[in-house]
Each structure stands twice: as C-alpha cells, then as structure tokens.
C-alpha cells in the first residue's frame, strides 16, 4: 500500500492533495490522448502508409510507386480544395458555437429559473446527441435558399454543415462556461455583492475575468475534437478532404491500392494539424494551474 498509515490510525493524516482547478471543465481527455503520442509517431504513420501497398499487394500489377505517384498528383487538389474547407468549417463552427455557447452557458447560471432550466435542457440535449444525427436534421430541415427582399441567397451545403456541427459545440462550450463560473469561490460573489455590485457587474467585472483563462484549455480541446470530426460532413456530400479523396481515387480507376495512401494521407494531415494543438492545450493547462 502506498500510504500504510491511512485507515489504521487515529492520528490526522494528510491525504494526497489532488489539485483540479476547474473540476470537469478541465476534462481534456481527447487532448491528453492525442498529446501522448510522440512526435515521431507521425513519421511511423507516414512510413506505414507508404509501405502498405507495397507489402500487401506486391503481386498486383498496380505498384506502390504508381499509387504514391497518383497521390502526389492529386495532393495539391485534395489539400487546397478539401482540407482547406475542413479548416474553414472548423473555424466557422467554432466561432458560431462559441458565441452561442457563451450565451447558453450564461443562461444556465441565470437567476431566472425558466431561463436557467431551458438553457440547461438545451445544453444537455445537444451535448448528448449523436453529431451525425444533428447534421442530418440540420441538412434536411434547413431551407436551400433564403429570400431577403428580392434577392435569393443559395445556402451551400458546407454552410449548413457548419450550423449542424455548431450545435454540439455550442452545448459543450455552454458546459465549459457554466463549469468555469461555478469554479470561482462563492466568496467572490459575496464580496462583490456586499460592495453593492449588481449581478451583471459581479459577473463581468469580477467572475468572468477570473475564469476566462480556465476556459481556454477545454475550449481548445473541443476545437481539436471538432476538427477531427469535420470529415463527418463528407457523408452529407460536402466536398471536403474525404469526399475529394474518394473522387480522386475514382478518377484513378478505383485501384484498391490507392485506399491506404489517400486515407493515410488524410489521417496524417489531421494528426499534423491537431497534435500541436493538443500539446499546446496541455501546456497551457499546466501553466494556468500553477498561476492559480
């Protein structure tokens, strides 16, 4: 046993001190998992992707060299038209999700019971729904075009996907905001109240400035999760990296040898983008924990 004194003594025992600055807010499971890879694993992944066609399909007449050559030719297209769209979707989703999530999170701590209950319900609903189902609902429920005045605006599929993905992000940001606010000691509220601050003033001048920093690591954690999830929208026909990779493979006569290089490349590019974010998230979290 690690602490042999515990449990069989009447003496006061100092228990190991677990410091968790913001409770569930700091639950960075995804970032922790991702950041645990060594940077070298990227290299292994690439190597594996290159060797696979060579090993498995050596007897075929379509060689690894040909497959990689095809990937090389399609790479600029897949990245510039596909992956860039994944990033655009991730930025916009995060922007909308954050704004809506902050409002919803503040709603959750509202002194008005009806507002708090509704915000809580909306948060739980979208936090616990499958993303793909939300995406389908938004895709099908949203109009294809909007008429403002006499102009008709076509709504592109990818923009609808942004709204679909923004729903679960909103709900999770809402939880981050609520958790961070509730992690501030009640003494801060009381001190501000006894100095005649209004609730709004207490929130904006005293509470939020204190928990802003605590929200950044979990916020970044959700950004990484979101980015990894953007290929979901390929199922809805949005022309992002996975959709374009499939189209490219079709253009190359659908050789099965193409699968691993193309999807392997998608894997690598997502990893290369999200891995530094995860590492940085954990570094920030450590730094803020020390400041606190």
């Amino acid at each position: 046993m690690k602490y042999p004194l515990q449990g069989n003594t009447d003496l006061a025992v100092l228990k190991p001190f677990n410091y968790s600055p913001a409770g569930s807010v700091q639950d960075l499971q995804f970032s922790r998992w991702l950041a645990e890879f060594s940077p070298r694993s990227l290299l292994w992944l690439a190597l594996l992707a290159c060797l696979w066609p060579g090993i498995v399909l050596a007897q075929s007449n379509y060689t690894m060299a040909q497959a990689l050559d095809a990937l090389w030719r399609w790479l600029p297209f897949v990245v510039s038209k596909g992956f860039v769209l994944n990033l655009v979707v991730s930025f916009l989703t995060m922007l909308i999700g954050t704004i809506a999530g902050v409002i919803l999170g503040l709603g959750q701590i509202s002194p008005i019971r009806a507002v708090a209950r509704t915000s809580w319900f909306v948060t739980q609903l979208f936090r616990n729904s499958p993303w793909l189902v939300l995406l389908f609902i938004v895709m099908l429920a949203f109009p294809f075009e909007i008429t403002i005045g006499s102009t008709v605006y076509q709504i592109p599929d990818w923009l609808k996907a942004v709204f679909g993905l923004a729903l679960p992000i909103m709900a999770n940001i809402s939880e981050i905001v609520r958790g961070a606010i509730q992690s501030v000691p009640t003494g801060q509220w009381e001190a501000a109240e006894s100095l005649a601050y209004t609730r709004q003033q207490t929130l904006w001048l005293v509470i939020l400035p204190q928990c802003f920093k605590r929200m950044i690591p979990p916020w970044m954690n959700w950004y990484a999760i979101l980015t990894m999830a953007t290929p979901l929208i390929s199922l809805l026909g949005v022309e992002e990296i996975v959709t374009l990779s499939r189209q490219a493979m079709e253009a190359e006569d659908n050789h099965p040898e193409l699968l691993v290089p193309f999807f392997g490349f998608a894997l690598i590019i997502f990893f290369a983008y999200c891995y530094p974010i995860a590492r940085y998230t954990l570094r920030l979290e450590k730094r803020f924990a020390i400041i606190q």
Partner: protein
Amino acid sequence: MSDTAWTPDQPLVSIRDVHKSFGDLEVLKGVSLDVMKGEVICIIGPSGSGKSTLIRCVNALNTIDRGSIMVEGQEVHDPDLDKLELRKKVGMVFQQYNLFPHKTALENVMMAPLKVLKQPPDEVEKRARALIDRVNLTGKEGAYPGELSGGQQQRVAIARSLAMNPDVMLFDEVTAALDPETVNEVLLAIKDLAQDGMTCILVTHEMGFAREVADHIYFTDRGIIVEHGPPTTFFSEAKDPRTQEFLSQIL
C-alpha cells in the same frame, strides 16, 4: 414603516427577535440587539452559535425567516428592499478576505466606488491611496492579492470596504484565517477605525481585543444571546454558566 426618518439618536442597526433556519436547523432563535452610531460591538460565542449568520443578515447576504432588522430605519427583511442601497451603507469584511485576485490592491479598493458609485477616477484614486496608507500598506498599491500575506490582504479588504464610505462595518471573524503574527496588524487597523468613530459589528474570537475596543459584548450560544454587557463587567461578572465555561476555555 420602512421609511420612517431615521435620526442619529436612534439605533443605527436594530435587530429584533430574528429567527433563521437552514432546513431543519434553526441557527437563530430570537436574537435582539441594538447598535448606536459610533458604537463598537463584539459578538462572541462557540462555533455554530449563529453569530456569523446574524451579521450576514444585516447586509442581506442571508435572509431571515422572522423578526426585523433595521439599518438606519430601513427594514432589511423587506422583499422590496433595494439591496444595493443597503449595501452602500453597510461594509463587510470576510474571514477569507475575498479580494479580487485579478486586480491589484489599489484596483481592488478603487473598483466599487468607480463602477458602483460612478465617482470620478482621479478623486477615487486619491481616496484609495489615502485608505491604503491608512491601513499601513503604502508601497503595496501595485501588488496582486497573491503577492500579499494574509494580514496584508485583510487590510486591503478593509480599505476596499471603507472606500464605499459605509455608515457601519461588519467584520466576520476577520482574523480567524490569519497567521498569529499578522493578526495584530489587522486588529490595529480595526482599532484605528473604531477610535475614529466608525460603527462596527465584529464577530470575533479575540477576547483581548474585544475587551479593549468594544463598547458592548454579546455572548451567543445555540442561536440565542445568553448574556451581554460592557467589557468592564462582562468578563469579570459573567453569570450564566455557559458564558463562564466559554470564557474559562478561551481566556
């Protein structure tokens, strides 16, 4: 009734038969006391006797179930009470200081007059610096709470509360969380205030301080005031056995 004009010859704070329960636990069972302007009263008693709850009711941080608390003739136990107006008159200092950690000492003192009372910044800053000087912290204006000792933080908290120019100050066990060597500096700051004529209600375990500074001492136990009197007689002539037992343990 709540807006009868208050004159300084009436009690500044008047507590009448106050009852308060937390669920099944009745912490105040009919407490009454009066505080005149310029008076310093100390409330002592064992932990859990309801003394902190009582002073938290005075600035409406806690609500009461029954009875009446009047501050300058205004009923605190009134659902239509303007809490903000009340709290401008009643300052409070807490056991855990509760300074705003993201603001410097000077900013902590300046914030409420600036944002709540909307006073002009240069005037507020002048007064804030004077208050920090008054609690002997000149040179610490730019320090963040995390860089100050407990005693220093508590003195900033006192200055922060004074910056609102309150008519009465509540001190809720303000030295209980402090290291012994810093208790004195905080007590000196409060004593300075008391001698300056500030009306003070203190919940405290510092008997020596109570004896020296208080005009009147109340001893509470299990939600009632067991005994009270001026310090000259309170300590030497305690009649109730509970008071005697408490004092024998403390002194």
